[in-house]
């Protein structure tokens, strides 16, 4: 059992690149950087084959005992079950494709070795996160991916705003991480262990459904998940995180790291099931986020920012699915989303590189003929994101969430309506993006035609995001549920409310209709009558501005937290506590000056001093008598 090799190989790759990266040739750096992830992808494939062929429920491997203090004894040990297998599969394979893409995308960058060192370290941390069998190791991975995210957002650190974006991402996610840490402390206090399996087994015995402790811990865990996955109210960092290179946005800020929150909740579903109210809040956060981010994506002009908001929105769908206990639906959408969103980001990166780092969609256009491969793969990714019926993977995964948000045991009509509205907006902004970028007249000259290193990963991802959907077909046709059966030992399936079974096909028809009508709306606005969107923008300028700025969350936080903090630190610039010690220093200096003045070296002054002192003593003696 070579389970430990999966995270260890990228770590070794990262070490080699950190130590010897500057001395290796670019070719060697590329081989070490993507080779290490490629190898661990192969091992994942091998492990997955063994896992399925032996029909085991879990593999376990303990590398060593990490620490053992007063009953707190986390080990560096890995636990592989169906859930983590799906995650490591996505991380290593999508990660490998993105590494291959980066070998060409970053070819002219000075920090070539540094880039791959960070990227490898990220893959290692992410694998540790999902393979960890206890929360301490999970937290190590959790912070590791946060660190790598910070390093890679600020990769082009010479520009000040990139450094700012990196710090923002780090600090905002830190808010969530603090909640998570407190949640873990409480878990340890209650169970005297941080082993995930043991906690999951003990929790239902120790707590009744709806118990207060379960509720508090669930909310704290949710806080961590919300921060990492950029959900309401901590979503503000993700759009700025687009300052990093496009492969980073694809790998970290779309496919893997931002879904760590989804993983955490799915992993701790045993606790969340004991707190139905917390689960409800998960659903509400998901529903609110997906609509909010969707409206914001409608108004953005920066290609990568549209994709960033759409990522927030799609993770909102996953949270919604988690909130209605549709665990496997959330993980299914995670997987499909990782494929098509990585595809979209990589294609967007290729477009941006071809147009000399032009991010503005309104300055693009007519790229359909110039970059045909990029166009077709982007079209496949966009269709999947918009969930166009039958042929795309996104349709099957999103449809399942829509269906269960209404018909699942915790579903209700409001969740369904929000999800439906979100689906409508999603297909509008997706095709707005596609039409603006690839259709119309050419506005910027195409400089760089992407080579094989870029197109091959795109083609593979396009294939995955299409066929990936067919491993889980709905009950109304096909009824082919390999994926949820596979996850069933870890994540219980959700039961459907009475009387809903018969209308599943209707829901699917509605979802398909909504997605197609979104495409039609975008077609009218951006192809048939291009002036219409400008008119709408000027007639509702305030609303446009409000949405464009992400519902004003940034300025709200600026007023609520940043300004008061800066104000207080301005007051405290000289450090109020230090005033006391400064006073001591001042007094000592004062006396020092006085006494050093008396040390004049003039003998007669000393004698005078002695005389005056003598007279004073004598006088005092006389007065006393």
């Amino acid at each position, binding site marked *: 059992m070579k389970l430990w090799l999966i995270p260890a190989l990228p770590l070794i790759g990262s070490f080699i690149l950190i130590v010897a990266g500057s001395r290796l040739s670019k070719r060697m750096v590329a081989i070490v950087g993507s080779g290490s992830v490629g190898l661990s992808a192969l091992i994942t494939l091998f492990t997955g084959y063994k896992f399925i062929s032996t029909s085991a429920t879990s593999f376990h491997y303990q590398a060593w005992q990490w620490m053992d203090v007063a009953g707190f004894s986390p080990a560096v040990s890995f636990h592989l079950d169906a859930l983590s297998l799906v995650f490591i599969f996505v991380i290593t394979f999508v990660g490998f494709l993105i590494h291959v893409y980066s070998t060409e995308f970053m070819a002219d960058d000075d920090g070539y070795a540094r880039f791959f060192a960070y990227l490898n370290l990220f893959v290692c941390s992410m694998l540790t996160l999902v393979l960890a069998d206890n929360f301490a190791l999970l937290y190590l991975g959790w912070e590791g991916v946060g660190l790598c995210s910070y390093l890679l957002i600020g990769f082009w650190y010479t520009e000040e705003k990139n450094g700012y974006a990196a710090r923002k991402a780090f600090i905002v996610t830190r808010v969530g991480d603090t909640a998570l840490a407190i949640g873990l402390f409480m878990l340890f206090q209650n169970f005297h262990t941080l082993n995930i399996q043991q906690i999951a087994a003990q929790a239902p015995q120790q707590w009744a459904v709806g118990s207060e402790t379960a509720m508090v811990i669930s909310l704290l865990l949710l806080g961590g998940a919300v921060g990492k996955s950029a959900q309401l109210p901590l979503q503000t960092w993700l759009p700025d995180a687009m300052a990093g290179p496009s492969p980073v946005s694809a790998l970290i800020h779309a496919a893997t790291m931002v879904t760590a929150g989804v993983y955490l909740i799915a992993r701790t579903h045993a606790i969340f099931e004991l707190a139905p109210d917390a689960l409800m809040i998960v659903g509400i956060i998901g529903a609110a986020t997906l609509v909010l981010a969707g409206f914001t994506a409608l108004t953005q002009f920066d290609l990568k920012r549209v994709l960033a908001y759409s990522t927030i929105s799609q993770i909102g769908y996953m949270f919604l699915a988690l909130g209605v206990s549709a665990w496997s639906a959330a993980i299914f959408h995670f997987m499909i989303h990782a494929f098509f969103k990585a595809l979209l980001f990589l294609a967007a990166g290729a477009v941006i590189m071809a147009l000399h780092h032009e991010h503005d969609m309104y300055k693009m256009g007519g790229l359909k003929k110039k970059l045909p491969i990029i166009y077709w793969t982007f079209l496949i990714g966009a269709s999947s994101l918009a969930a166009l019926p039958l042929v795309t993977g996104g349709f099957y995964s999103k449809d399942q969430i829509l269906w269960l948000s209404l018909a699942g045991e915790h579903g209700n009509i409001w969740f369904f309506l929000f999800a439906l509205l979100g689906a409508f907006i999603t297909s509008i902004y997706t095709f707005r993006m596609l039409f603006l970028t690839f259709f119309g007249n050419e506005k910027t000259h195409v400089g760089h035609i992407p080579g094989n290193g870029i197109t091959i990963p795109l083609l593979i991802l396009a294939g995955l995001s299409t066929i990936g959907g067919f491993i889980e077909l709905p009950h109304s046709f096909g009824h082919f549920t390999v994926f949820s059966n596979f996850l069933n030992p870890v994540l219980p399936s959700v039961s459907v409310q009475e009387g809903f079974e018969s209308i599943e096909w209707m829901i699917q028809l509605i979802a398909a209709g909504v997605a197609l009508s979104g495409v039609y709306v975008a077609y009218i606005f951006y192809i048939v009558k291009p002036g219409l969107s400008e008119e709408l923008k000027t007639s509702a300028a305030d609303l446009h501005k409000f949405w464009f700025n992400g519902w004003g969350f940034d300025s709200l936080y600026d007023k609520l937290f940043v300004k008061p903090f800066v104000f207080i630190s301005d007051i405290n610039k000289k450090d109020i506590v230090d005033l006391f010690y400064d006073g001591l220093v001042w007094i000592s200096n004062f006396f020092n000056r006085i006494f050093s003045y008396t040390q*004049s*070296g*003039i*003998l*007669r002054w000393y*004698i*005078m001093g002695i*005389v005056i002192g003598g007279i004073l003593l004598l006088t005092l003696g006389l007065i006393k008598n």
Partner: protein
Amino acid sequence: MNEIQVTSGLLLAAALFMLGLIGVLIRRNIIFMLVCVEIMLNSAGLAFIVAGSKWTQPDGQVMFIFILTMAAAEVSVGLALILQIHHQLKTLDGDAANSMRG
């Protein structure tokens, strides 16, 4: 000896002491300062003598011998220092020796 002699003897000692003290304080010439210190020592010696005769004890005179010896030693050291100061600073001004070096 009677009371009046004791008082006048002590007054004389006090006057001499004050003269010496004022001399030390106001003279800048270092030899004069040394001389004035001698005057102060002698005034102290006089006070001892007067006190010794008042109580008809020999201790006062013993004390005076001590002071005399000490004064001799002091003058020898003092004169050596004065010579050194004059050698180093080319002056006999006491205030000139107001800084330490090394």
